[in-house]
């Protein structure tokens, strides 16, 4: 592009959004004259002014409508098989509710793990997937027996299974040692057996031995906590690991992981690991995913507004009576949502004043609502 035209376009940078400037740079062909370029940009500014929101527009309500109305058209099916080789993910309305509730524990936590360039061949991806998958002790066990006479638990390791995770009995014994403090762990005479016995040799330890047998099932011997399943797939020519179960903090700390692309679908985890701004864009992204999967069309502005109100306090808050609604300044607005009696009593105790600045309060007392045409008022001198 000719420099002078580009400079003409750039000179409008303060009047137009970066997106439109970029779009203009793309669309305006080289052949235009300076005059034409100015004309185009002026028309663009004019249409931008025309498209600007009017002050007083109740954008919140419009967004709520835009998301709430198509909600009726979404499917309720919790699970969804998108193609043959994909993970089970919560989709549709249940997922949307999950996002807007900002649930602490979600039904299907999931990560998309990308590896750094040059390290993301199919072979490497597969190996990495295996490496991070959480493996529990039972997967490498052949047998567990309780020796009542000697008060011991004897574990027999399947060496082939263990080798899959490049472990041997010795190493497993080592892991067990750190995990089971009250037991002494001894690798038995036969190499694949490990013997566990109580350190403090009180009698009547049978119950303890039984407990330890149960506990053994939950001991992690390999991989990353919470990563229950891994599935390497190809996406747009790149290899990605989908995991069920999420552990963003640890995965991002790994050297081979491309931390720019790797994400989780657990909003709280993102907030904790990456901060509130990341949580905001996660809310937007996750919502867009749900909506697009349903074949619906909702403008991103509406979703951004919801995400913004969820994150405006600096903390991720759900759209529930414990989250966003609780932060409202008006007593009556809170009372009109849920648990009105509770709200009125707490308000009475601190002598709270409702200044009637928002919508429902004014509806309640039959006054114009301070939105749209209810907003401006005239002051005249009366004679």
């Amino acid at each position, binding site marked *: 592009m000719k420099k002078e035209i580009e400079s003409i376009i750039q000179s409008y940078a303060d009047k137009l959004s970066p997106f439109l400037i970029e779009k203009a740079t793309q669309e305006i062909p080289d052949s235009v004259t300076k005059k034409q370029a100015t004309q*185009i940009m002026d028309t663009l500014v004019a249409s931008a002014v025309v498209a600007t929101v009017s002050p007083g527009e*109740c954008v919140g309500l419009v967004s709520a409508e835009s998301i709430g109305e198509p909600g009726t058209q979404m499917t309720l099916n919790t699970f969804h098989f998108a193609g043959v080789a994909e993970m089970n993910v919560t989709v549709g309305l249940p997922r949307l509710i999950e996002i807007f509730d900002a649930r602490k524990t979600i039904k299907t936590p999931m990560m998309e793990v990308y590896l750094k360039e040059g390290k993301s061949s199919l072979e490497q991806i597969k190996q990495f997937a295996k490496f991070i998958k959480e493996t529990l002790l039972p997967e490498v066990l052949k047998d567990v027996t309780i020796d009542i006479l000697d008060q011991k638990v004897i574990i027999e390791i399947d060496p082939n299974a263990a080798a899959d995770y490049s472990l041997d009995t010795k190493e497993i014994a080592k892991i067990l040692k750190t995990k089971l403090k009250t037991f002494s762990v001894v690798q038995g005479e036969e190499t694949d057996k490990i013997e566990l016995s109580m350190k403090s040799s009180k009698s009547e330890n049978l119950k303890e031995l039984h407990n330890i047998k149960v506990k053994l099932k939950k001991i992690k011997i390999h991989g990353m906590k919470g990563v229950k399943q891994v599935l390497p797939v190809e996406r747009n020519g790149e290899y990605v690991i989908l995991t069920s179960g999420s552990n963003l903090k640890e995965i991002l700390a790994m050297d081979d992981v491309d931390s720019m692309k790797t994400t989780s679908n657990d909003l709280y985890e993102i907030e904790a690991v990456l901060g509130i701004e990341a949580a905001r864009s996660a809310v937007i992204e996750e919502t867009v995913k749900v909506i697009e999967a349903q074949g619906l069309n909702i403008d991103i502005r509406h979703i951004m507004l919801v995400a913004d109100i969820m994150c405006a306090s600096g903390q991720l808050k759900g759209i529930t009576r414990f989250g966003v609604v609780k932060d*409202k300044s008006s007593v009556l607005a809170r009372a009109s949502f849920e648990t009105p009696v509770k709200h009125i009593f707490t308000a009475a105790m601190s002598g709270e004043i409702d200044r009637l600045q928002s919508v429902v309060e004014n509806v309640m007392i039959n006054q114009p609502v301070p939105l749209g045409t209810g907003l401006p008022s005239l002051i005249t001198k009366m004679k």
Partner: protein
Amino acid sequence: MRPQFISKKVGSIQFRVLSPKMIKAMAAAKIVTPELYDREGYPVDGGLMDTRLGVIDPGLVCRTDGLRLKDTLGHFGYIELARPTVHIKFVRQVYDFLKCTCNSCGRVLIPQKDIKRYSDTLQEIGEDQSVQAQRRQVREIVTKYKGKGKCPHCASKQGKIKLEKPYTFHEEDRKLSPIELRAWLERIPDEDLELFGMNAVAIRPEWMILTVLQIPPVTMRPSITLESGERSEDDLTHKLGDVVRINQRLFENINAGAPEIIIEDLWDLLQYHVTTYFDNTVAQLPPARHRGGQVLKTLTKRIKSKEGRIRHNLAGKRTDFSARTVISPDPLISLNEVGVPKKMAMHLTIPERITEWNKAYLLEFVNRGPKVYPGANYIIRPDGKRKAIADFTMDEITEELTEGYIVERHLLDGDIALFNRQPSLHRMSMMAHKVRVLPGKTFRLNPSVCHPYNADFDGDEMNLHVPQTEEARSEAEVLMLVQTQLISPRDGLSVVGSIHDAITGNYLLTKELILSYPESVDLLYSCGVSDLSNLAKKEKLDGKEVFSALLPTDFTFFGKDKSGNEVKIINGKLKSGLMDKANLGEESGLLLRNLYSQYGAAFTADLLGKISKLGIAVLLRRGFSIGIGDLDLMPKTAELVKQSINDSEQKAFDIIEKYEAGKLPALAGRTVQETLELRLLEVLNKARNKSGEVAMKQIKENAALVMARSGARGNILNIAQMSAITGQQALRGRRIDKGFTDRTLSYFKKHDISPAARGFIKNSFKSGLDPAEFFFGAMTGRDALMDTALRTPKSGYLYRRLSNAMQDLKVEYDHTVRDASGRIVQFKYGEDGFDVSKTKAGSIDVKEIVQAVIGEKQ
């Protein structure tokens, strides 16, 4: 109508707790007897229906303000409680106070020197989070110091406070009577209250223990007279009667010096009644009941929930001048109009003030009276008195009518009315229409506005509201008229569009019809086009040329039609492409959106009306109908379809065979069984698509196909299901599962995993399903029904939460988005400040602007 000038406005409302002093001061009467009426049925003085508390009988006069029924608002009274009782709603707070303050000096159990240190942080917590959080913090701080068991101020020993639910307190093991509680709370100094987030002016803690009980006015708890002449009192009156009765008994017993046990018992009973008066759903208490066993509805329940005062009466309003009836379609009225039955138009009225210029005009209405349309029903005198127009008052009324009077005249064509269909899910669910008075008993609307209302004509009813003031009317007309709502704020696309036959007609017209000049003129004239200068003067006219006659001559548009062909409109001439749903329908394509932005709302609405009429007129002349024969396959095609189905089935059997031989490789992360199911589902799902495709190729053009192709109704899949194969029935994304008995139906062998045993329907709807197939079809049908039934309330609740949370967000004059308290949520709405309904699908079409400026190079 009286001149309405709002001279006063409620500025703010403060919530606080009434002190006993205030209760007494605002009381009109002291209630001393549980009796309600004397023998003549007149309210007893000092009873709960005392006429000083307001009146609910016609004929009686309120003794406090001298007003009659409906004019008097009623007045509060009070009862003096013989012994204090705990207010159930404050139990938690009392508990907090007892835990955190000294039992003898009343100071908070934090050393003086540390109080200052904490007070700021506490204040902050109270403001940032909630008063509850603040109090929780106080509790935590106090437990830190409490280990010593002594008050840091007066060094007296502190016992452990226990709450025995619902309302009994113990210090160590000694019961604290409400009298003691009150004395304790009285000792807490004002300045310590602030630590608890309480405003000492608004509330003193001792007020949380009741010594007097406020009696609500009679008007708030009206009794109803049954047909038998018997009176049935309100639940609140019943409950208050219990309180007064027990209270009097307690007084008498105390005065007579009765034994402590009796007094204690009565006191407990009084506490129970006072508690259930406030809240009849306290967990540990049996709810108070009517004699019949029905639970009393007391104060808390009156306020709570959807049917409670707040959501039912305060946040929801009811109106006069509204109407409701069944809707039916009328493609001949404008998009902006609504057909109103004449009968309704004679009941719905519009007030018009007589001035010197319209006096004669309005007098005509009055003279015709209420029974002749268009007449008038009432007049309103300047003093606000309303008079019905009837034969015998007619002369008198016409005599006195002068300027300043208001005439309530019948609804006329062109009046503005709001039209609404529930559920009102978005703002297009309530739009303003211009009234068109029509014969018949249903509302008529243009089929093109069905989509925003989500209406159809299978018995739907809709509501009509007639705005009564000039401000309301003009606001409705300017902001809410259908043509102003054409573009959805949800995605920036058109929400209205031609439907059904209107699309089919235009599709056929632009696709295949060749018309003679007279035919074309006839067609265009029938849909309201009288200016035929756009129509080429030729013997034979292409359908596209006829359609182009509607378009403005300077309109240029490029888009795509449903089958992906390019649509080119250059200077008002449709050069290529078909007019189908992708261009004329709602929420698709930019044709209507571009018309709207170039030529404005009124033009687009008018043009859309003409296009729709054109489509219908085409079908009217060409003829269009569907029959069972449209689903017939030619013998050759039928053979091919059969072949295709058998192929797919064979593939499925091959997979099964492989599985049974143990040769099926498992997919990553799946078991072999899961893999099998997935592969089978994939193959069988493909079977329908494939045989559908085969069938489509062979079928000659018929009505069903035209409708599917144009997007007017139905799709290719529907046709395939009807004429070729119904296909695999899937339940929750998998084939019909075996039940508890290892088979889907007893008709099959156990463990049968063949396609037919798992919901693969080989027949078409036309050839008819066999019993097993029918059953599988019913299963998926039921599942779909359940899904909708469960989804509606869930999404409704989500919507309610969203709208409640976001209703106060608005764009300020500085273009920031803020909530009611002024907190900024976004610095610029949507990061670019664009109103979605003013954009083209969410953005500005830069390409179009560039092309417009540098000129077309096609």
